[in-house]
């Protein structure tokens, strides 16, 4: 027996509003499951940003290409940790691989995840870095030389045939990768969207909304990382690249916002039996996280900030520093907004009773597996992994010299 749980539940008992089924008082998917779709969203979003360069040939965002691939990998490695940690029996996780139930959206996790990690992300990263790895190893000694050699699978072939194959393979992988990234996050949306018992989740739009919010969060995070890491590692921020990426982010936020608006209008207009309890929940329990953080601070404010800079950039020659500041604030706001989006979906879907007669409350613990501390740790872990990855596979090694010259040129124009 877990006395802490019982204590928490006893405290929640008087906070129930209306009637809930007696088993519903415990919020079963807590902070960890909020973190999980947030992280996979970043993976999908970062990967799609990388694909922009390769498939759509957007030259300007080239400096973000490798960074976004590494970001995707760093976050993808942490995603299953959140999932496994929240299980009642984490040590039985292998069951999902041994006896997967094919009709369960969750059981497909292992396969979608393995496909995405093994067949798409690792392969793309490998092909991108192969020739570099060989070259780096040439000029190195000791452990680093061995690591780079091993990562290149001891290949030393930089011949024409091999390099040509690298390029061809990259193209194929990126093209396969985009639907795969959609699949990865669409599947996360489907886990929620396919629950017919829960009208807050059950919507065909949910996977699509998840996808676009994923793109938003991933692109915003890569921009944020780029703007933070570049000065720290002694580089100069390429504003043409950031401007272009922000452009892309801007449209993604608009699509995301419209989709959620469509979903909202649809629900209110159809006004089915659950509408009363859902609107009560939105106006009370989710007021701060949905209306204030997600919509106002996470979408409308960044949209306003970015559009103002876009409009006045040319007219008033807004200085680069001011633009940087606005972008920086916007991408941070967007991160909070998307985290609130995940919170509203996951926690919101469990705060109202399936009897549509009442609401329960979620109280975030500080310590423990489901607690705040662990969640923050999980959110920080990918940054650590990314730092290690960047040590091993420096994303801007040879771009720095050319990039510096280019930036000067752009700033001058």
């Amino acid at each position: 027996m877990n006395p802490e749980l019982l204590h928490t539940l006893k405290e929640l008992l008087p906070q129930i509003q209306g009637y809930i089924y007696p088993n519903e008082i415990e919020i079963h998917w807590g902070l960890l499951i909020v973190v999980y779709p947030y992280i996979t969203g970043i993976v999908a979003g970062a990967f799609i940003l990388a694909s922009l360069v390769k498939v759509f040939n957007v030259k300007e965002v080239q400096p973000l290409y490798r960074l976004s691939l590494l970001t995707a990998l760093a976050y993808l490695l942490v995603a299953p940790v959140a999932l496994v940690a929240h299980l009642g029996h984490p040590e039985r996780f292998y069951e999902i691989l041994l006896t997967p139930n094919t009709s369960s959206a969750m059981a497909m996790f292992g396969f979608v995840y393995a496909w995405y990690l093994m067949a798409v992300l690792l392969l793309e990263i490998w092909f991108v870095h192969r020739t570099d790895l060989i070259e780096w190893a040439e000029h190195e000694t000791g452990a680093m030389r061995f690591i780079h050699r091993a990562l290149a699978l001891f290949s030393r072939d930089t011949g024409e045939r091999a390099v040509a194959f690298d390029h061809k393979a990259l193209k194929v992988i990126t093209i396969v990768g985009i639907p795969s990234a959609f699949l990865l996050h669409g599947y996360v949306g489907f886990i929620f969207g396919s629950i017919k018992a829960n009208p807050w989740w059950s919507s065909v739009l949910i996977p699509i909304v998840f996808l676009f919010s994923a793109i938003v969060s991933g692109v915003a995070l890569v921009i944020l990382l780029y703007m933070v890491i570049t000065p720290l590692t002694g580089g100069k921020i390429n504003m043409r690249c950031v401007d272009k990426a922000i452009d892309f982010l801007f449209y993604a936020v608009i699509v995301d916002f419209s989709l959620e608006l469509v979903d909202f209008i649809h629900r209110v207009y159809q006004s089915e039996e659950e509408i009363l309890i859902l609107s009560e929940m939105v106006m009370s329990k989710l007021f701060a996280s949905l209306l204030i953080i997600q919509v106002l601070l996470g979408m409308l404010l960044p949209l306003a900030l970015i559009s103002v800079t876009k409009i006045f950039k040319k007219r008033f020659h807004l200085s680069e520093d001011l633009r940087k500041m606005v972008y920086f604030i916007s991408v941070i706001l967007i991160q909070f907004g998307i985290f609130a989006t995940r919170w509203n979906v996951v926690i919101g879907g469990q705060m109202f009773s399936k009897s549509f007669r009442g609401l329960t409350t979620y109280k975030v613990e500080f310590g423990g597996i489901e607690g705040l501390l662990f969640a923050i740790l999980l959110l920080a872990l990918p940054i650590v992994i990314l730092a290690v990855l960047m040590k091993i596979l420096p994303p801007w090694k040879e771009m720095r010299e050319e990039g510096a010259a280019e930036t000067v040129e752009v700033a001058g124009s």
Partner: protein
Amino acid sequence: MGKLFEKFPDPLARLIVVFLALVAAGAFVFFVLIPKPVKDLKVQWDNAIRQESARPVKYAGFHACAECHDKLYETKKKGYHRDLSCETCHGAAKAHTEDPDTVKPVIPAERAFCPQCHAYNPSRPRGFPQINPVAHNPLKPCASCHNPHDPKPPTTPKECAACHGEIARTKAVSHHVQLECTTCHVTPQRHKVSPRAVKPTKPQDREFCGKCHGKDASAKLSANAPKIDLAEHGEKYVCWQCHYPHSPEVEQ
């Protein structure tokens, strides 16, 4: 191996080697290392069904008690509690059947027990015997008047309210509070002894109510009663299809 590297570009050949190694390792783990029952759902389900079926029983069941307590069982069989399991009141008794001397089922003697079923509650179905625990012989244990194995009123009740408590309490706060039950129901004395065999009468027609509520009613009690024209009021319906006589509607 050499042939592989000749046929394919170098990077592809290396990936093929890694891929094959991974597949081989995976296949080895899955097919060789992992025992079959762990990955066979059918086996797992059969085991689960067996485990579920083997759980210990706590409630012995309706007929188990009769084997020893045949006298009580016979008494109960004819009374109003005939459909109750012994364990409804005495609790789970499987342990008692296995070890009758040391494990004794509970005998709920406290006054709070019977009202769990028999206290008045407006959510309970009409006609289910209910009392007001506050007013009904306060502090006396239920068993001092009622035999729980053959429950019935201990003495012939004087008041109708002894059995028809809900109606009496409803009527007590209605405009018909002044009326005796017998004003409308002719009640033979034998109804109090065998209530189901001999039943009181009920009013049959509109004219009965009209004796007080008709526009030219002359009955003694009817001085303040609201008056209607029997010929026009209420169309084809009899009075109690709209008005509940024990708590008639009052115009606001």
